[in-house]
């Protein structure tokens, strides 16, 4: 017979329960989101006016680096692993994840990885200051002495991701309820299955890159040192062979979330389910063969440039199909606008804008001007923040009632949405202008003609940052004192096995598998 959770701190340290581990991942990622957000606030405060007011350029570089690393590896990725832990077993009718002890381990090494990384900020030499892309030789020969902590931290974080992915693949392939064929799986499960394969393929590549750095720094090798016969460009090829799929690792589960929320609030099944699956798989495949579009200016031969340009443009096809499918799902639906739906619609709009600028960036000739400018910063924040953060926020509002049996405050949710949406656009839309006018990214200080848009961008950032406090307030308030809900189905239009179990979801669900017709 199933038992309840253990008492005290032991429940969290030793838990093998997918819901507990999901909760741990979500709280951890939210803490990292606030930390990375704090770094972003420091950056935007410094850039509020030309001149160095608050910090020194060397610390500014640590802030941009840590902001990127913490957001990508600490906030966004663990957030979707948390959602996967909570939802995948419930969505496929499984009692838990396939490898529960490894599940515990893959979470509990994360805080150590990030402690190593963040502790460097307090050491002599300071934290990593070479950008989240850590291009050699800035990150090897010219790195601060703390770089070994960064390397070890990345190893731990990568190991955690690999274990998490193995677990997800094992769970999805082995533990589906009878009758749930692959082509009946919910989209979130599909997107995560594909993402997990991407992770297993590329995290070892990242581990290889940082290990080669480790050798160059400490053991006299010259993988990336031209003076010793190595090649700094090799680093970029290896990094982006990881880095480009990484972008899709972040955004594919977000696609999955949106493919649940839009049908629910349109009260209409997802349009083009099978084409969604195929589109996701094609995007994942293409993500492996386009990496050098991040390197159009390293001096590739023109044949290479043309190939990477054409291949990159191709990604627009499956991505556009997804957007068309979401819109067709809404078309002739019966739409209502609860907070998760607002975030999901904003996701579609803003992600599409990010997709357009992505297509522009794919044009190698135009990339001469866009590359490493604020245009790129604007582009990837439209994809990452509007893509991953908006969909993550939508997911929390959407499934929170199921998780804790209490309803969030709808008005507060909508207010948070509008503040986020407006703040986000004030922050990042003007960055397109700055980049086109010639402002490079990762600049601690800038020429006077960039002053006005920078100030506006900073104001937007403070608004967007403040809206996250409202989010955490709403979530905590819901957990402590939200209106209790007990209907299995919180939302009228919701479909899927997770909405057939009791609300709040019991500690153990599907001890006996459900029948899927």
């Amino acid at each position, binding site marked *: 017979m199933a038992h309840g959770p253990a008492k005290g701190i032991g429940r969290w340290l030793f838990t093998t329960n997918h819901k507990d581990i999901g909760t741990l991942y979500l709280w951890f990622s939210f803490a990292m989101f606030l930390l990375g957000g704090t770094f972003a606030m420091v950056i935007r405060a410094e850039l509020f006016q030309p*001149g*160095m*007011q608050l910090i020194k*350029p*060397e610390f*500014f570089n640590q802030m941009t680096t840590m902001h990127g690393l913490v957001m990508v590896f600490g906030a966004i990725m663990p957030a979707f692993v948390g959602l996967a832990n909570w939802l995948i077993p419930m969505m496929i009718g499984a009692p838990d994840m396939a490898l529960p002890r490894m599940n515990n381990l893959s979470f509990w090494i994360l805080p150590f990885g990030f402690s190593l990384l963040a502790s460097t900020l307090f050491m*002599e*030499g*300071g934290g990593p*200051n070479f950008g989240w892309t850590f*291009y050699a*030789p*800035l990150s090897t*020969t*010219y790195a601060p*002495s*703390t770089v070994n902590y960064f390397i070890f931290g990345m190893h731990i974080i990568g190991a955690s991701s690999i274990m998490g992915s193995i677990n997800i693949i094992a769970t999805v392939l082995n533990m589906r309820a009878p009758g749930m064929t692959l082509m009946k799986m919910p989209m979130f499960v599909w997107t995560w299955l594909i993402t997990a394969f991407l992770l297993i393929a590329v995290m070892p590549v990242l581990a290889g890159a940082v290990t080669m750095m480790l050798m160059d720094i400490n053991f006299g090798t010259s993988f990336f040192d*031209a003076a010793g016969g190595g090649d*700094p460009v090799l680093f970029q090829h290896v990094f982006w062979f990881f880095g480009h799929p990484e972008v899709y690792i972040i955004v594919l589960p977000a696609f999955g979330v949106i493919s649940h929320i839009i049908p629910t609030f349109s009260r209409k*099944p997802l*349009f*083009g*389910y099978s*084409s969604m699956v195929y589109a996701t798989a094609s995007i994942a495949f293409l993500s492996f063969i386009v990496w050098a579009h991040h390197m159009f*200016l*390293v*001096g590739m031969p023109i044949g290479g*440039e*043309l190939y990477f340009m054409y291949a990159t443009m*191709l990604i*627009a*096809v499956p991505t*556009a*199909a997804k957007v*068309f499918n979401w819109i*067709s799902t*809404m078309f*002739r*639906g*019966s*739409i*209502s606008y609860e907070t998760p739906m607002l975030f999901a*619609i904003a996701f579609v709009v803003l992600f*599409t804008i990010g997709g*357009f600028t992505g*297509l*522009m960036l794919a*044009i190698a*000739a*135009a990339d001469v*001007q866009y590359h*490493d400018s604020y245009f790129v910063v604007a582009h990837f924040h439209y994809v990452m923040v509007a893509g991953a953060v908006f969909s993550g926020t939508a997911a929390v509002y959407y499934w929170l009632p199921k998780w804790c049996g209490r309803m969030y405050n709808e008005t507060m949710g909508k207010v948070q949405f509008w503040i986020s949406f407006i703040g986000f656009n004030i922050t990042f839309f003007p960055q397109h*202008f700055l980049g*086109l*006018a010639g402002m*490079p*990214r990762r*600049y601690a*200080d800038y*020429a006077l003609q960039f002053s006005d848009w920078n100030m506006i961008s900073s104001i937007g950032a403070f608004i967007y940052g403040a809206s996250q406090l409202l989010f955490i307030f709403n979530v905590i308030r819901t957990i402590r004192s939200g209106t209790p809900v007990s209907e299995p189905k919180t939302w009228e239009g919701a479909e899927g096995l997770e909405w057939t179990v009791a609300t709040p979801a019991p500690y153990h669900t599907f001890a006996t598998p459900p029948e899927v017709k």
Partner: protein
Amino acid sequence: MSRRASMLFALVFAPAISLAFMSKAVAEEAQRWAVNMPKGATPVSNAIYDIHMIIFWICVVIGVGVFAVMFYSMFAHRKSKGAVAANFHENTTAEIVWTVIPALLLIVMAVPATTALLDVYDTTEAEMDIKITGYQWKWQYEYLGEDVAFVSELTTPEEEIYNTAPKSQYYLQEVSQALVLPAKTKVRFLITGKDVIHSWWVVDLGVKKDAIPGVVNEAWAYIEEPGIYRGECAELCGKGHAFMPIVVNVLEKEEYNAWLAKKKEEVAAERDLAKKTFTLDELMAQGEAAYNRSCAACHAGNGEGIPGVFPALKGSAMATTTGDYAAHLDIVVNGKAGTAMQAFGGQLSEVDIAAIITYERNAWGNSTGDLVQPLDVLKFKQGQ
């Protein structure tokens, strides 16, 4: 017109009208609030601008179409308006259509995109070559075949950066020596880096190319109009990344030739200067200036460096042992492999190197009393 309407009119149009009378102000205002890429001054920058605008408008048209359908259903198919959900969830024809149409559009885009890229890459038939080397945090320009080379560094004073003095018009966009180029000449740039990766970007020239150690990249420009064009380093290269601007001064061909002749004379004069014997005071004065230009970015103005990143010179053994400056000379001229310490032998004149070493050995409480002459530096360089 009602009073309110006329007030509104005044509010909206008065600034516009008054601005229109001050064309300079208008131009500055336009630059401050720029929202688009400049067309620039070269055929390549124009080609890039054109392809940028083509893709932009294609995206706008698609975006308007897609969002129109979306906002229509968001408005018309609201539950609060009593919309009842249909139950369709597939339409193979539609799905094929919206796969094929974007694919065709991409092919349409790919044609001008390819032409523009071929243009960017066409460095053939250049009339002159400039070698550009990126250093932490300055650029070196070499006029290949002309025996003229110089380093170009930021001249904006610390006081402006740290807000104790008002910022001048070209804040962070002014350098010690601009790259001087002739107009209406196809110039090929050979771009490389000495320490970390930099990227040489002048938006108006439509040139951005990474400066990578061990790699020589090519780019080119044919500039129609004489004038001053300003650019920046575009690849994160350490703490001085935002502080190594580019200024290109384009002259008419005759003026350029005159400039080049004068520059060659200066180079010869500088070589003669290396044979002169200087006093301690002369070297200390010149050394302080040169140190602040070339060394202070890492080792700090007070010689204390940055703990854990850049070593202190104040009180360091290398700079405080009287009479024994061989190691000091060696590290300044040749740099130190595997560290951020660059080789200054090829960047600075013998006089500057001698002055810097003398300064470092006699400033901030370092008191060796050593006097290093330019001739010593020259001999050291020739002896190795």
